[in-house]
Structures are given as structure tokens and as C-alpha cells.
């Protein structure tokens, strides 16, 4: 039961090493589709609802209130957050050590960032017209997502993660410059759709 009965060939042993390394990496990271696609779906639905509310020329394309659209976005993000929470619980059951400590600090950074953003936006948004107020919330939350993704790339030495951050930053900048309607449209299509496509591609490649 303990040792293999015959001496395996070098080819077999090299194959064992390669297969086990790949299988372990895949197993530890979990399915990348569930890391990216739920955020893609949340943003696609939420920002499409916001886009239909704002319209591109200041007239709504559908009878959806701003709060209803924000509700759709929040609900989607809660579901996506649940996937992240599941991943964290699974990781903590599987491994412990420096990577888990880094992951925990990174998680607290997200929490602290969003808490601070809520304070700043709650204070500033009553002073703005509704469209600009919505843009303040959406633009600052995506700014946080972009910078934390890039920081996460540095932390875990993961270029895919880093470039996701760059992508969010680029789309967010363009959207904020163009205004609330365009911001919602670009975010729904390029970030929502982009994250779904990216999740599928990363899964195929891994």
C-alpha cells in the first residue's frame, strides 16, 4: 500500500509532477468563472437599469426610478459578494499562513474603502443634482474597485487581476467624463459584459 510496486519511468514522473502542480493550483484558486462572472452579471443588470433610468439625452428610456435601479445593482452585488465570501471560507478551511493573512488584510481594505466611500458620498450627494449624485456613487465605487484590483494584482502577483483593475479604471474615467447616462451604459456593456467574457476566458485558459 505504501510504495508503488514498480519503478516508474522518468516520463511518467515528470507527467505526475506537471499534472499535480496544475491540479493543485486550479483547486486552490477555485473556479475563476465564479470570481468574475457574478460581478459581471450584477453590473450588467444594475447599470442597464440605471442607463434606462438616465437615458443619454436626459430622458428615461423606461419607467424605472433611480432607487429601483440602485436596488437591482445592490441585489446583484450582494449575490456576487456571497460568492467571494464562500471563496474566503473555503480558502481558510484549506490553507493557512502568509497568503491567508495577506488575503484577510486585503479583505479589510475593501471593507474600509467602501465604508469610507459611503460616508463621503452620503455627505456630498445631497448637494448635487440627482444625476450627478448617482455618478458620484457609481464613479467613486468603481474607482475603489479599480485601485483595489490593481493592488490585488501586486499582492498576489496576478497580472490578470491587475489588468482587470486597469480596465475598470479606463472605463470609469471615460464614463465619468461623459456623464451619468454614458457611464451607466459603458459600465453595463464594457465592465458587466467584459467581466462575464473574461470569466469564461480565464476559466478556459486555466
Amino acid at each position: 500500500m505504501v510504495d508503488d510496486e514498480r519503478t516508474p519511468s522518468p516520463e511518467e514522473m515528470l507527467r505526475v509532477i506537471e499534472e499535480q502542480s496544475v491540479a493543485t493550483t486550479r483547486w486552490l484558486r477555485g473556479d475563476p468563472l465564479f470570481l468574475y462572472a457574478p460581478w459581471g452579471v450584477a453590473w450588467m443588470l444594475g447599470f442597464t437599469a440605471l442607463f434606462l433610468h438616465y437615458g443619454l439625452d436626459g430622458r428615461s428610456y423606461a419607467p424605472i426610478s433611480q432607487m429601483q435601479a440602485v436596488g437591482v445593482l445592490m441585489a446583484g452585488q450582494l449575490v456576487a459578494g456571497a460568492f467571494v465570501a464562500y471563496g474566503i471560507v473555503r480558502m481558510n478551511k484549506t490553507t493557512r499562513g502568509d497568503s491567508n493573512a495577506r488575503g484577510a488584510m486585503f479583505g479589510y481594505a475593501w471593507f474600509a474603502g467602501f465604508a469610507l466611500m459611503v460616508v463621503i458620498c452620503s455627505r456630498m450627494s445631497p448637494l448635487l443634482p440627482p444625476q450627478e449624485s448617482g455618478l458620484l456613487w457609481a464613479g467613486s465605487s468603481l474607482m475603489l474597485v479599480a485601485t483595489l484590483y490593481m493592488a490585488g494584482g501586486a499582492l498576489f502577483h496576478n497580472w490578470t487581476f491587475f489588468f482587470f483593475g486597469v480596465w475598470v479604471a479606463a472605463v470609469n474615467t471615460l464614463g465619468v467624463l461623459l456623464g451619468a447616462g454614458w457611464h451607466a451604459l459603458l459600465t453595463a456593456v464594457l465592465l458587466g459584459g467584459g467581466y462575464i467574457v473574461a470569466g469564461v476566458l480565464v476559466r478556459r485558459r486555466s
Partner: protein
Amino acid sequence: MTTDNTLPELDPVIHAQARLRVVAALNVLGDGDEMAFNALRKLLGMTAGNLSVHLTKLEDADYVRINKTHRGRTPVTFVALTTRGRLAFEDYTKAIRTLLDNAGGAT
């Protein structure tokens, strides 16, 4: 490590498929990380008894470090590759590649 004319010796501790898989799996973890025994068992598809036997051999060679602790009231065992184990795995991989090169089977 070796010249082209001398065939490298393969580390007998690692040169058994089951232990090679254990070491290859643990080598994926970062330097300061450990994997729970049960997680490793599931990943490798081994029985607890079988994995224990292999881990004991690896521990005797100072290739793995076994850490028994508690999570709440539940005992949990964590396993990590030692620096010596990591080096042994690197040497073994190099030796296997050298053997394949000498056999003319590699690029």
C-alpha cells in the same frame, strides 16, 4: 548539478509516485503557507492512513513540517514543505529532466 555524461541519482524519498504527488502539491503553496491534512487528502484522493504513512516518511527526511493544532475544539493538522523539501523537489525535477535529455526524449 550533473554533467551530460553522468546520470543523476533520484532521491528515493520522493521517487515514489504517491510521495511525489504530495510534494508537488505542497510545492504550489507559498513559502509561509500550510495546507490542512484533510484538504490535502481530498486533493490527492488518498485515504487518511495512506497519506499519513507517506507524510511520516517525508517528515523523517525533514521534507515536510507537520503542525497539529486546534480550531475551536476540533483538532486540525497542517502540512507544509520545509526549505529542505522544496530544494529536494527542485533537485528531483532537474534530475528527471536531465535523465530525459540524456535519453533524447526532451527538447
